């Protein structure tokens, strides 16, 4: 049990970087970006092929960042220049990336077990079971911190305003089209970076490992917001990190139920997201009803039905 939990937290922190990317598109830009399912694998593909061919694993992981950036920009251009609806431009890019990923990898699965990766290097440095967790935690926090700072810069502010009130920010001479392209690029850069780390963590990169990634990202964002809140940027990004870890813990616990096996993961994820989306509304409604009832009793009236 403890090892399973430890693993859940460890991978949760790595996936948290992906969830931060989803936060950028889904919350900041208000753009539900399905490119994520493809760009996550693109990151893993670029990193693993470079590593297999002898590139320094840190450099290879860094390269994934750029590959993801390009993928996100492509989605952004489809939407802003091509006038294609946000969901559809993401889906189109996701499906296109499937083939591109296969081309990059050359085969559906690239094993990394025999290679020196970022993960094996860290393990060697720390010589402790906590090494990877600590390293990834620090990395995720640094990325969170940079994201927080970026969203407070002049460019970052207009990026947020694009998601908030596009017409307004255009009237303050921001090129909203390019802002969206930039935002989606940055979002998918983080997703691909996370994909590169996950591939090295798992010891292989598989062309199908991105399926449902957007939903996992959404689950992390929504669970985090429910638990931590999103009253400020720093708090919202922290919520995403916590949400990503909580999601992994929930899944690990769910998989311990006899009846369920690993193939049910996607179903469990979907159910978690559905619950996370519906539950807060139901709770709010109940709270409001209880409040109303109490107040009406004080007033001595009969509530309607």
């Amino acid at each position, binding site marked *: 049990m403890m090892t399973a939990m430890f693993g859940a937290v460890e991978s949760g922190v790595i996936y948290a970087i992906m969830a931060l990317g989803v936060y950028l598109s889904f919350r900041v830009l208000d753009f539900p970006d399905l490119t994520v399912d493809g760009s996550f694998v693109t990151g893993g593909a670029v990193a693993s092929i470079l590593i297999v061919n002898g590139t320094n694993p840190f450099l290879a992981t860094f390269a994934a960042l750029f590959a993801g950036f390009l993928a996100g920009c492509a989605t952004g251009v489809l939407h802003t220049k091509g006038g294609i609806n946000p969901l559809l431009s993401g889906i189109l890019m996701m499906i296109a990336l499937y083939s591109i990923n296969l081309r990059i990898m050359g085969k559906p699965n690239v094993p990394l077990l025999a290679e020196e990766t970022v993960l094996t290097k860290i393990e060697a440095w720390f010589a402790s079971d906590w090494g990877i967790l600590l390293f990834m935690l620090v990395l995720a926090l640094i990325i969170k911190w940079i994201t927080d700072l970026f969203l407070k810069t002049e460019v970052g502010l207009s990026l947020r305003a694009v998601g908030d*009130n596009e017409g307004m*920010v255009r009237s*303050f001479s*921001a090129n909203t089209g390019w802002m969206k392209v930039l935002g989606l690029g940055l979002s998918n850069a983080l997703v691909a970076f996370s994909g590169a780390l996950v591939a090295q963590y798992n010891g292989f990169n598989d062309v199908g490992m991105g399926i449902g990634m957007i939903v996992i990202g959404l689950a992390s964002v929504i669970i985090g917001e429910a638990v931590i809140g999103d009253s400020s940027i720093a708090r919202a990004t922290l919520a995403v990190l916590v949400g990503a870890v909580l999601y992994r813990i929930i899944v690990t616990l769910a998989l311990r139920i006899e009846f369920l096996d690993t193939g049910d993961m996607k179903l469990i994820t979907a159910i978690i997201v559905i619950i996370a989306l519906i539950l807060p509304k139901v709770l709010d409604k109940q709270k409001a009803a209880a409040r109303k009832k109490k107040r009406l009793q004080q007033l001595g009236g009969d509530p309607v039905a």
Partner: protein
Amino acid sequence: MLEMNQIFKVFYEGTPDEKIALNKLNLSMKPGDFVTVIGSNGAGKSTLMNVISGKLTPDMGTVTIDGTNMTSLPEHKRAAKIGRVFQDPMAGTAPTMTIEENLALAYNRTKKRTLSFGVTKKRRDFYREKLEMLHLGLENRLQAKVGLLSGGERQALSLLMATFTDPKILLLDEHTAALDPARAELITNLTKEIVANLGLTTLMVTHNMQQALDLGNRLIMMDKGRIIFSANEEEKQELTVEKLLAEFQKIKGGGGLSDRALLS
């Protein structure tokens, strides 16, 4: 400051719904001019605003702002010279961002956006000083989210954001129409004060005739995409709501009752 020459704009051309929104319209504004625009619905007032702001490109004619031909320049590129306040108090501000962040967005209208922070200590003092001009106490709520403000407060903030970086042209699109009478008066007074202090060249659309008479040094009346009546500074002093309505009926030629209801 603003030259509009033979502006023509048609919608749904070649269909039974064809509508000529602006019909070879000419308008010229000198620096410091404050022109109020009245006219019934569908007269072309909003199209006029949108052609100036760049949201729409005219089919014919030229728009020159501050000596530069901007006829086909996209909205965000000419926004450096144009401040704009919309009718909807929600339209001019970003609700999930704080007051100071909104001001920082507006601050960048005339400047290139960089990776430096939008809110610094120095800038915050500057924003606070500007907010004090509104007399709404917003200067003490810099970190409040704009979504929490009332409609009147948001519209006052929109007005400040549109003007504090000295636009060449200020466009006011029925910016008091969605407010209650007390708030509308507050915003009207603020408009008067800000435009006078900064000497802004302003174009204001309104459905409120009294407001159109109270504000500005020139008045134009639009109908069917043309300017059908125009009053300069001296003529405007003489005008009353009654005289305006009479003028309108004279030009439209009777059947003024429904229009009277629309305009008063």
